[in-house]
C-alpha cells in the first residue's frame, strides 16, 4: 500500500524575486507503507527541502504531496494533524531539547496531541525503551546527558508521537561507531516491530546499506535514481559522477568481479560479502565448515 506520494512536486525558493532558486523540480515518487527508504544526494541536492514537504513545513510551489492518498494541503487548517502522522527529526536534534527533565521533554509531543496522562506515560516509557535510555536518566536534566544520550532523548521525543511515518535527517551524524551502530540497530528493530514507514537522509553509504529497503538519489532537485538498495549500489560509476559513492565493501566486489571471480555486484554489507565468498572458497576445499 502506498502511504506517501508526491506528484510533480516543485519547490522554488524566493519565487518571483531576483533570488529565485529552484530546489525541487517535478519530483514524482511513492513510498510503500512499512518500508525504509534512504535518501542520498550531495549537499544542496534538495534532500532537506524534500523532507520538509512531507509534514507540511514547506508548502509546494507546484504539484502536491499525498499522505494516504489525500493531498496534505487540501484543508490547510488541518495541517497540524499531518504533523502528528509524519514525525520529522532534524539534524542534530539534541539542540532542540529544552525541558526540565528528559521525561518531560519526551512527553512534550504526546501532550500536544491531547493524550491522557496514562497514555502519555506509556508512550514515554516505550520511546525511552526503544532508544535505550534508562529510567535513571529520565529524571535528569537533558543538559546533563552526554552527546549520545542527548541524541537518544531527542529521538525518543519524536518516536513517542507514534506517527505513521518517521523522517530522520542524518540521525547518526557526529556519533562514534558504537553510538552509530546502537542507534541504527534500535531504530531498525523499532521499525520492524511497529511497521512504521521510515525515511532516512544520510551521507553515509554504509549506514544506508544496512537499513534501507530502497534508496532515492537526488541530484539538482530531481530524482536521479530510485530503486532497491542493491540495484542502486550496483551503479557505482553513476553514483560517483553524482558526488556520491558506494560502500567500500561494494567496491571490493566490483573489483573481484572485474578480476573474473564469479560474484555478484550487489553486495553491500560485510556480512553478505562473507556469505558470498565463503561457499566459493569451500567449493575449492578451503576453510572450515
Amino acid at each position, binding site marked *: 500500500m502506498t502511504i506517501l506520494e508526491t506528484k510533480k512536486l516543485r519547490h522554488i525558493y524566493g519565487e518571483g524575486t531576483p533570488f529565485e532558486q529552484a530546489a525541487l523540480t517535478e519530483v514524482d515518487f511513492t513510498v510503500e507503507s512499512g518500508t525504509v527508504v534512504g535518501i542520498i544526494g550531495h549537499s544542496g541536492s534538495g534532500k532537506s527541502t524534500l523532507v520538509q514537504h512531507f509534514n507540511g513545513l514547506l508548502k509546494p510551489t507546484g504539484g502536491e504531496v499525498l499522505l494516504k492518498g489525500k493531498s496534505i494541503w487540501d484543508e490547510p487548517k488541518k495541517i497540524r494533524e499531518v504533523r502528528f502522522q509524519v514525525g520529522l527529526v532534524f539534524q542534530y536534534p539534541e539542540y532542540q531539547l529544552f525541558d526540565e527533565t528528559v521525561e518531560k521533554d519526551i512527553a512534550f509531543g504526546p501532550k500536544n496531541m491531547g493524550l491522557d496522562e496514562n497514555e502519555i506515560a506509556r508512550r514515554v516509557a516505550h520511546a525511552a525503551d526503544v532508544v535505550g535510555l534508562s529510567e535513571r536518566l529520565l529524571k535528569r536534566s537533558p543538559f546533563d546527558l552526554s552527546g549520545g544520550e542527548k541524541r537518544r532523548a531527542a529521538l525518543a521525543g519524536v518516536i513517542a508521537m507514534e506517527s505513521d511515518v518517521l523522517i530522520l535527517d542524518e540521525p547518526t551524524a557526529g556519533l562514534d*561507531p558504537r553510538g552509530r551502530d546502537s542507534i541504527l540497530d534500535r531504530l531498525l528493530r523499532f521499525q520492524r516491530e511497529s511497521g512504521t514507514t521510515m525515511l532516512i537522509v544520510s551521507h553515509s553509504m554504509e549506514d544506508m546499506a544496512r537499513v534501507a529497503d530502497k534508496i532515492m538519489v537526488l541530484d539538482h532537485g530531481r530524482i536521479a535514481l530510485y530503486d532497491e538498495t542493491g540495484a542502486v549500489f550496483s551503479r557505482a560509476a553513476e553514483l560517483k559522477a553524482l558526488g556520491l559513492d558506494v560502500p567500500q565493501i561494494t567496491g571490493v566486489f566490483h573489483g573481484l568481479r572485474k578480476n573474473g571471480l564469479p560474484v555478484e555486484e550487489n553486495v553491500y554489507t560485510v556480512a553478505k560479502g562473507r556469505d558470498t565468498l565463503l561457499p566459493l572458497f569451500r567449493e575449492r576445499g578451503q576453510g572450515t565448515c
Partner: protein
Amino acid sequence: MAAVIELEHVTFSYGEEAEDQGFIEDLSLSVEEGSFVAVLGHNGSGKSTIAKLLSGLKLPQKGRVFVCGIDTSDEERELEAKKNIGMVFQTPDNQIVATIVEEDVAFGPENLGVEPSEIRRRVDEALAAVGMEEYKDHAPNKLSGGQKQRVAIAGVLAMQPRCMVLDEPTAMLDPRGRGEVMKTILRLREQYGMTIVLITHYMNEAAMADRVVVMDDGRVAADGTPREIFSQVQKLKQLGLDVPQPTELIDQLKQAGIDLPDGILTVDECVQAVTRAFMEE
C-alpha cells in the same frame, strides 16, 4: 626528526559535573615533525580535549604541553606557541569570518601583523594549495561544505603554522566533500611537510595516516601504524570503534579458516588478496 608536539604526563578534566566529557589522565605523547597522525576514540574518550590542549584553548592541570619546544602555559611565549598550531574544526561556518573568500584567508596573517605584499602572496599560495584559487572572489556562504572546509584550511595555512590539528573536519560533509578535504590534507603534508593531527571517526581516513593513536578513558589504548592498529579487529571493537570494511571482510574470512594475509586496509588490497587466494587452488 624533532618532535613538534610533546605532551608530558598531562592530566585534564572538565570537573566533576562533566565526568563523561573527555578527561585526560597522565597522557604522554609526542608527534614528529612532518608526520600524519590520526587520533581515534569513541565520544568522550578525550580526543577533542587533546586538540584543545594543543591549541592552548585549555591548559593542563598536571603535566606539560610543548608546541615546537614552547610550553603552552608559559604566558610570555603563549602567542608564539599558538602561531605554530593551526586549528580546523567540524563546522567550517563557525570558522569563516569574512564575506569574500580571499579576505577570509587574509584574516589570520593580517592579525599576525604580516606585511600587505606578503599577505597577498600567502593568500594566493594558500588558496592554490587547497585548490580554491578560482573562488577567491566568491562569497563563502555560497560554497559547498567541502569547499568551505577547504577555505577554512587555507585560512589556517596562510598563518604558516608548523602543525595543523583537524577535529573531525569531514563529519558534516558529503562523500565528495570528504574526498576533497582528505586529498588536501595529504597534499599539505607532501608539499609543505606540514605536521598533521587528524581527529576522526572515519576509519578509512585514519587508514591514510602514518600513525594511528587510539584513545580510551583519557589514555592511549593503542599506538602504531594503521596496519598494526587495524589488524587488532577485536580490540578495536571492544573500544567502541570499527575497522575499515575491507579489513573486516578479510578478518571474517580468516576466522572461517581461509588463508589470507594480515594488515589489509584498502579496497584495492582486499581485492588483490582475495583474488590471489582464490586463484591459488
